[in-house]
């Protein structure tokens, strides 16, 4: 028995050695400071050999994506946006700093399985083993909160996108920079719109009991009350809830005429379907995140009338003229250029998650260009000083100690699923009025 174990152990050992020997040599890992390789362009060499030698820097951008798990839908879109930006920069030959250094990017990414523990493990790996130069957040506030601790501990800049919760920026960090409108301001445009439409509305707030949705839902209550609305129900539900029947019955029992709530994609779709099936006579239903996705109309009639706050919509994309009027610097492609490039690459129209992913890269690129350096401290200083407009909207970060990195310039719109002239579901912008493409559907139709 012992002999066979010894033979087995020896075989495994030998096999391991053989496999190790066969493994291809690891790609040269980027050092602490970005790897620099010299590229000599033949034509230039012929003319001015000494001065035309360009240094090329390939910066490693580390991030995790939820290829599996509950955040998959939105996370994949975010990563698609980031990838599109990176491909465009690299295909254009990178960009050049004043010292002649050509900057390009390479992605290092892993599947975080929508799992907080895995995020911390993977961001540690991205920093310690993969030597990522800059980090982009995972999707969702919960995962970003976990990743941000690792980024901050290691002094790595992390541009956060798909993460609206305010709390992570109020812990004294110096390395996080938020692109999204903070969660506490998520529903304010919707409340402003409701005040115009129906100041006597009774509001039920029903939300997924996770960091982001809880922050958004609880954060809007004082604003609702300040605007004279009565909040008749305030309740969280478990992430894994599938049967929303009892919750919808509770909303009906509360006498609410308006629902504000939701959380992420899976629960949002289930809640929308339960609302439709029970037909409880709500005049308006607003859900977080899920209705912003292009998959949402798969719900059929249950999608009609459901509203969502959106970080970006092509129909209300920000423009260079807008930046000029505000006296703010413009950077990057127009919304139309971005959207057509995305459709060409991925075959469907971009959502705000895609736009957020793309802009995360764009903002990092601009910060490096402003810093004229790839040094972390210099880029951090450039981000702190940034006041920018892209197609995604305003980008400016709170530089105070109390809320460092919190987004202060970006504004949201309210979108709603309505039927177009052909009777097909279409997401239109209903607020604010200056960018609205349609009137709000209020009250939403009943069956």
């Amino acid at each position, binding site marked *: 028995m012992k002999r066979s174990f010894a033979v087995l152990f020896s075989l495994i050992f030998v096999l391991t050695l053989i496999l190790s020997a066969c493994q291809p040599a690891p790609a040269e890992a980027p050092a602490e400071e970005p790897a620099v390789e010299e590229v000599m362009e033949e034509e230039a060499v012929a003319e001015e050999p000494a001065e035309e030698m360009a240094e090329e820097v390939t910066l490693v951008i580390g991030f995790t994506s939820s290829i*599996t*798990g*509950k955040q*998959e*839908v939105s996370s994949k879109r975010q990563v698609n946006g980031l990838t599109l930006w990176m491909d465009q920069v690299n295909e254009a030959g990178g960009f050049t700093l004043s010292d002649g250094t050509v900057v390009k990017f390479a992605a290092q990414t892993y599947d975080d399985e929508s799992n907080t523990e895995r995020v911390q493990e993977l961001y540690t790996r991205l920093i310690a083993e993969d030597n990522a130069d800059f980090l982009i957040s995972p999707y969702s506030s919960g995962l970003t909160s976990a990743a941000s601790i690792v980024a901050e501990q290691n002094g790595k800049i992390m541009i956060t996108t798909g993460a609206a919760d305010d709390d992570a920026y109020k812990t004294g960090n110096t390395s996080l920079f938020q692109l999204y409108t903070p969660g506490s301001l998520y529903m304010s445009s919707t409340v402003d719109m409701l005040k115009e439409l129906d100041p006597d509305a009774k509001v039920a707030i029903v939300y997924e*009991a996770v960091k982001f949705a809880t922050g958004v839902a609880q954060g809007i209550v004082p604003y609702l009350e300040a605007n004279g609305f009565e909040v008749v129900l305030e*309740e*969280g*539900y*478990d992430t*894994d*809830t*599938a*049967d929303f*029947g*009892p*919750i919808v*019955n*509770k909303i*009906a*029992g509360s006498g609410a005429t308006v629902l504000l709530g939701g959380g992420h*994609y*899976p629960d949002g*779709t*289930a809640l929308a*379907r339960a609302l439709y*099936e*029970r*037909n*409880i006579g709500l005049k308006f239903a607003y859900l977080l995140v899920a209705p912003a996705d292009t*998959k949402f109309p*798969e*719900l*059929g009639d*249950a999608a009609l009338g459901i509203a969502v706050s959106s970080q970006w919509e092509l129909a209300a994309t920000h423009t260079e003229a807008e930046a000029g009027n505000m006296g703010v610097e413009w950077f990057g492609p127009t919304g139309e250029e971005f959207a057509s490039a995305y459709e060409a690459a991925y075959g469907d129209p971009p959502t705000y998650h895609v736009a957020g992913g793309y802009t995360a890269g764009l903002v990092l690129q601009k910060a490096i260009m402003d810093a004229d350096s790839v040094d972390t401290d210099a880029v951090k200083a450039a981000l702190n000083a940034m006041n920018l407009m892209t197609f995604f909207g305003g980008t400016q970060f709170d530089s105070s100690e109390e809320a460092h990195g919190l987004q202060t310039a970006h504004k949201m719109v309210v979108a709603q699923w309505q039927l177009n002239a052909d009777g097909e579901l279409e997401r239109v912008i209903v607020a604010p009025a200056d960018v609205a493409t349609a009137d709000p559907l209020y009250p939403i139709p009943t069956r």
Partner: protein
Amino acid sequence: MQQISLLLTSLPDGILLGFVYGVAAMGLTLIWGVMDVINLSHGPIIALGMFGTFFLFIRSGINPYLGLIPIAIVGLLLGVVIYFVAVHRVINAPHLSSLLATFSVNMIIIGIGTAVVTTSPYNVDFNMGSFQLGSTTVLGTRLIAALIAILVTGGLYLFLFRTRPGKYIRAVTNNRSAAELMGIPSTRILALSFGLGTMLAAVSGALISTFFPFSILAGGSYELKSFVIGVLGGLGNPIGALFGGLILGVLEGAIPAFLETSWVPVIEFGLFVVILLVRPNGLFGAKQ
């Protein structure tokens, strides 16, 4: 007073859902009862049943209730295959071996499922209307699912108590060695039992998909509910599982009337632990 009104509104919903939970748990408890195997591939098979309905209805236009027939047949065959591939060789080994074997099947199904359909949520946009019963809205899909669940339970009862293979299953459950001495082909009967268990899981998944969105990971929560129902209804007692399902459904309908919805799993699994401590064989326990 408002709570009582809410309770009366939510209770019928819970009861109807409880019947379907019962069918899901019946599969788990049948396998446990016959062969002492805790089938950890139960959840993914429920999810496969959901996707069966999705593909048959959305892609092929087959009515979800007609689609139950091919889903049940494929579920039965899949169960037999899983039995021979992963369970048969460890059937007499300690429980940990069969637990790990079925867990491996669980991981394989989820892995393949993730590769094929991703973990995105899917929705079967199917509606059977609704009607008012007092203050309650009764959904057609849930009512029909409950009726089918009762039919399935009745069918299982008749099969187990009125047919020869059913009697063989009960004989193998009671004493496998004695059954073999009586000439009962125990291996085939065990495979059939495993197949029936997975068939019930797939059918319950197909029914659930007509009222909730789902993903390849969705079966996990129904598997956990099945454990609670198994204990409520009595471990190894498939018919008792229907009553266990009803109790769970009633709890899920009643608790939100008095507490926040997020308390539902706390109370469900608290009850699970209490019953295991007080009556380890379950409320209607048949197995010693």
